[in-house]
């Protein structure tokens, strides 16, 4: 798999020496990570290895105990809210759709707050975002409580895309989904990356996503991070990585890499 990294060496988002502690437990010990424009980076690690905390740190939701996050070379705290919203889109694990708003209102909300687009333009844009996310137009009037798990994820995708962000953070985009829907989401991620040139950072447990979609993979082990292409990581001697990438589930996913289908 070719990485677009070779073309553009200026990171769009980079973490420098991140340290995160909770009580006595040190989750991140001087973790540094560069994400380059146009790439799809997967973040993996065992339960409690600090994947979600890293994602929160990268999006500026969590202030690390030490180190800094640079968004386009600028400290993320110094970037103002509207600008950050235009650069970063986040898909939360449970979707985090506003339950009092309909699907259409959920997608229009960031546009209404941050742009001076006319209402009918906002609606048109929301309509194409819905379509891009693979939802039928009649989903617009539904409320989050009326949606299935896969639809919630797709609406959350559409909302994350509302302001055409340059970077999309996805927290477990395929968890709780059946394999068919999950591979639909994988295809969506790839399509967005291809045609909209969106940089994607995915926190995932899903080996299929990892094998079929990601250009590079960051592994969190023992508070440290190891970032490389999957092919190089396959040869890595680190015990957790070996087990993770050569376990029975990984073998199945690996064979699915060519077929892009199936689970286990």
């Amino acid at each position, binding site marked *: 798999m070719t990485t677009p990294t070779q073309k553009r060496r200026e990171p*769009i988002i980079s973490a420098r020496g991140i340290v995160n502690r909770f009580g006595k437990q040190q989750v991140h010990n001087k973790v540094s990570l560069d994400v380059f*424009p146009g790439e799809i980076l997967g973040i993996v690690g065992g339960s409690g290895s600090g994947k979600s905390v890293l994602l929160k740190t990268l999006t500026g939701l969590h202030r690390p105990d030490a180190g800094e996050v640079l968004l*386009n*070379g600028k400290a993320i705290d110094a970037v103002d809210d*509207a*600008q950050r919203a*235009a*650069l970063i889109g986040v898909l939360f694990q449970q979707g985090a759709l506003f*339950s*009092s708003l*309909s699907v*259409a209102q959920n997608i229009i909300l960031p*546009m209404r707050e941050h*742009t*001076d*687009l*006319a209402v009918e*333009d906002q*609606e*048109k*844009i*929301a*309509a*194409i*975002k*819905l*379509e*891009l996310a693979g939802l039928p*137009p*009649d989903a*617009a*009037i539904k409320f989050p*409580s009326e949606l299935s798990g896969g639809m919630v994820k797709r609406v959350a995708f559409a909302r994350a*895309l509302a*302001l*055409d962000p*340059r970077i999309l953070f996805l927290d477990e985009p395929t968890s709780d989904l059946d394999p068919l829907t999950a591979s639909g989401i994988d295809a969506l991620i790839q*399509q967005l990356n*291809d*045609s*909209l*040139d969106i940089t994607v950072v995915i926190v995932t447990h899903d080996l299929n996503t990892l094998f079929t979609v990601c250009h590079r993979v960051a592994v969190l082990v023992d508070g440290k991070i190891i970032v490389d292409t999957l092919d190089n990581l396959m040869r890595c001697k680190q015990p957790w990585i070996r087990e993770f990438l050569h376990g029975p589930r990984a073998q199945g996913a690996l064979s699915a890499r060519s077929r892009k289908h199936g689970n286990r």
Partner: protein
Amino acid sequence: MQRSSSEPPLSRVAISGEGDRLAFEGVLDIRTVSELKNALKGRLKQAKPRAVDLGSLSGLDTPGALFLRELRHKGVELTGIRAEHEALLELIGNLKAKPLEKPAAVPRWRELIIRLGKGADAALRDTIDLITFVGRAVSAIGYAVIHPRYLRPASISRQIAETGISALPIVGLMAVMISVVIGYQGVAQLRPYGGEDFTINLVAVSVLREMGVLITAIMVAGRSGAAFTAEIGVMKAREEIDAFTVMGMKPIEMLVVPRLLGLVITLPLLTFFSDVMGLLGGAMISQWLLNISPMQYVDRVHVAVHTNDLLVGLIKAPIFGFLIAIVGCMHGLRVKGSAESVGQDTTRAVVKAIFVVIVLDALFSVLFEKLGL
């Protein structure tokens, strides 16, 4: 780079060219698309453009591409499209872009009638539910009393601690405050007639008969009634209630009976405490406003108050406690999957519990008057 993302607010777009051949320059994105649209409107009055050159367009995003797609549909030819924009234009161009479906509009007057109907229907169902639930709860209590094994004293005592002991400070404070309020009003109203000493009668009787139990019940409805709904509601949302059922345990017996009995025991005790604190507040008021010493105050209260006054207050307490717990638990079990639903039912439970308490208190007032108590 598709877009000069380092400084998004500075992105600009401009129209150049003459007559029906125009060119767009700069960044056409979500921030600039409205500006371009307005600028183009001015141009349209002069001449309808035939072709637009996009060679100098340095950035494009989906709203921009959508706008170009619309131009194209109006018969404008797009020329000089940069290679990096082609994929995006093609993607957007191939979408169906159906307009968003909108909820069917209902006329105001019909909406009003629909709401009225729904409200009436909900009220009817609520009443039936409440009666059914009272029946189920009472039968569960009866069963537990006959089979003491299912009475769960540990659970009941925990409920008493949570709803009673930890409510003592706030209930006591409220009782003192209420008698201060009644005392001040009484002195102000009775002074012109020279009867300000009767303020003591007013405070003592109204605290014992009404205020003590009412304030306590309202406080407990807000505190424990809400807690019951939220606790049971979260358990319901997390399928814990289903887990009980599947394992052959009755949720009503496990969750509702201890809370009901707990509150039925607790509320009279809290009310008694609140009565004492209310009389204490009365003593403070007499000292401040009437210069009546606490010893004299005790004598006056002794004359003004009958045992009946205390009992009339206390007899209502277990009934209020029962209803608060019933409403709280019923709404807890009514919660549907979502967190939102927990919040909704908690609000409803508190409102309904306080409503029921006050309505019932008014009925009791009339009843005791007729009975001459």
